[in-house]
């Protein structure tokens, strides 16, 4: 399993980048208040040899200690993460569920009517959907439903669940388009295959053939897409949180990047990397269930 070494590599790379980066807290260019200096000293053991520092960093990381934030002086990175993570996870989770629901249904609907007008229309809509960047749809939705129609809140959370609607839709749109196309292509391919002909030759009704023999292999491309989809959702979440002013991880990340708050940025990157790797493993499991040939190594 390449997961653990990959994560380790990311963490180490992040650490060394941080140490080498100009304008950081470690080369004395920025004057820091003594408390922060002291906190850094303990956190990173700045007087010890480099590789020992790396070890300290990694061991703290594993325990969930990402170090202090440089910008939000009173908080450690872990505390900021704990605040932002639930929001980002909710956004991302709902978005992927919505994308799967819309995408798979649209794809199935189109595939069963392959070649006809309904199929072509749905696929064209799906293609357009994949080309809609979240930073365009986000503001556009906010403009239309928020400012013009005044139906939904344009920024911030609170007031129940309505704040979720536009961000989730903006996030889910491109992913649902991609899933629709993959589902339709997958099913169209599968329906031409031999084992479908065998099922027809047995006199089985078409719907049964579709769902029992056709669906699982058809969803294989969607399963392989889940990994990259998660990565895409995380990056899209960054935009959506910025546009809609939601205090999720993505927004902290952007603020940290702009303000050169290295511990924060690196903490978020590591966390995201871990999340994606986890999600990839999950996607592999689903893949194995869909196609038994993948189960053995």
């Amino acid at each position: 399993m390449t997961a653990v070494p990959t994560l380790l590599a990311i963490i180490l790379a992040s650490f060394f980048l941080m140490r080498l980066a100009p304008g950081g807290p470690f080369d004395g260019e920025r004057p820091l208040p003594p408390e922060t200096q002291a906190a850094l000293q303990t956190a990173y053991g700045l007087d010890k040899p480099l590789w020992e520092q790396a070890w300290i960093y990694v061991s703290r990381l594993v325990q969930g200690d990402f170090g202090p934030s440089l910008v939000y002086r009173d908080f450690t990175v872990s505390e900021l993460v704990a605040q932002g993570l639930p929001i980002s996870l909710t956004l991302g989770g709902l978005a992927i569920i919505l994308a799967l629901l819309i995408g798979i249904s649209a794809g199935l609907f189109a595939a069963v009517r392959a070649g006809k007008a309904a199929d072509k229309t749905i696929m064209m809509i799906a293609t357009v959907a994949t080309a809609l960047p979240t930073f365009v749809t986000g503001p556009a939705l906010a403009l239309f439903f928020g400012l013009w129609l005044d139906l939904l809140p344009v920024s911030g959370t609170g007031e129940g669940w309505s704040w979720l609607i536009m961000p989730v839709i903006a996030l889910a749109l491109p992913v649902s388009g991609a899933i629709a196309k993959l589902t339709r292509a997958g099913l169209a391919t599968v329906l031409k295959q031999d084992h479908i002909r065998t099922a027809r030759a047995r006199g089985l009704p078409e719907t049964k053939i579709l769902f029992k023999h056709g669906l699982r292999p058809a969803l294989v491309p969607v399963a392989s897409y889940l990994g990259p989809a998660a990565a895409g959702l995380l990056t899209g979440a960054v935009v959506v949180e910025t546009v809609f002013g939601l205090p999720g991880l993505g927004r902290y990340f952007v603020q940290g990047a702009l303000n050169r708050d290295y511990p924060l940025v690196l903490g978020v990157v590591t966390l995201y990397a871990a999340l994606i790797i986890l999600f990839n493993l999950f996607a592999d499991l689903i893949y194995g269930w869909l196609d038994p040939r993948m189960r053995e190594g």
Partner: protein
Amino acid sequence: MSIYEIRDMAIEIDGKRLVEGVNITVEAGKCTAIIGTSGSGKSLSCLTPFGLTSGVAQGSITLDGIDLIRADAHQMQEARSRLTGFVFQQPLTALTPHLTIGAQLQEAAAQAGSSRLSRHELAQRLDRVGLSRADERLDQFPHRLSGGERQRVMIAAAIAHEPKLLIADEPTSALDASLRGEIMALLDELRLERGLAMLLVSHDLASVEGHADHLIVMDQGRVVESGPTASLITNPQEEYTKRLIAATARLDEPAPQLQAVGDILLETEAVTVTFPRPGWRRGKIKAVTDTSLHVREGEALAIVGGSGSGKSTLGKAIAGIGPLTSGTISWQGQPLPKRRARTVAMRALIQPVFQDPVASLDPQWKVRDIVAEPVKNLQPEILRKDRDAIVLKALEDVELGEEYLDRMPTSLSGGQAQRVAIARAIIASPQLLVLDEATSALDPLVGSSILQLLRKLQQANNLSIIFITHDIASARRLCHRIAVLDEGVVVEMGDMDSVISNPTAVTTQKLIAAS
């Protein structure tokens, strides 16, 4: 009593009439076989009446009293589910990959509406078709089984609901040669045991000869000739049928006149080829083990075996385009170095011809450049203008005209492409040709004409040939001697006729039975 009767059937796809005037009769307990090349319409004729192709059938088609043309959806479903069973060509893809064998067999058995079978009953059915460890198999997925085993499962599934008609579309073509005899024998057994009416489709006359009562020959969408098998074969009336029968190699035809042979040219001694296992798995795969053989000047040696026997690997090692782990390959006494170390002069001695003609030609190159490639490398002293003349001569030798020079491989038929490949192989005047299943992927008529071409070239240029194949009967038409390979080891070797009349190894016997 005829179960299935087709009169004057025509089939159209997208308005194009592809099949016309076809009559087929299948009787209970008897087997009718349709023989033809690809594109003859044989598969279309079998599958279209049941709505399994995109074609539309017209004419009179009656199955057990049901008129299939005028059948409504319900009757059609009944015809498929209750009365007919199907066995298709590619066992790997014909079974659903994500359902277990047991689940699929259960579904097949239940298609006629009967109640669920117990696990024991399912295992019994698998056992009946010769599948070992039947109970274990019920929980396995199709990709865990070998090709032959999967086909047995298909057969079990096809008869699970006690149909009256069994349609088998090229049931053995995708299987290893040594298995063909067994599968055909199994089908015969089941047919007689249950009084099944069987409709068989094949492109290979030899494989159905001993099993069909009635033969129908099709070409280009029409029935050329039909009649009881025995009389059709001994006394064909139509020209096409005669050519087809002549093209099909048989073991009992008269021995060919082969030319005299000279001294030993190529010798292999204790040749072994092993491959590391793919992925992270440990251990090696032994493709060829400790093989020793020789080929004389002007001689044709057949290397025969089933798939996985290592014959291709051996051929590639000899031709210097595949790995060689240990042992020596020598030419006229001098050892030949391994693959990448072979010099240009050595390459000129041995040339290969492959099984898939179109895949052996670079799709981006013109015929003229393809055939000229060996000359450019092996005889660089020849100038371009002279080279063209040599290319033309090579094309002439393989009976292709000047108009082929600027054609692209994708525009060539299988036979034409193979001729181009042979032209490329002989253009630099090699002394040994390694033919790796060079006729196996071609239609019988085309294949036999290629074989004739090879004989002509062999005699004209005193060529030595290594003919790798699974088809002993074809090999007999060309080769002096034969070596039989099984799992990488030579199990039998000797003169063609003596090995065929007195086979000692089990593999040889199976391969002979398949012919």
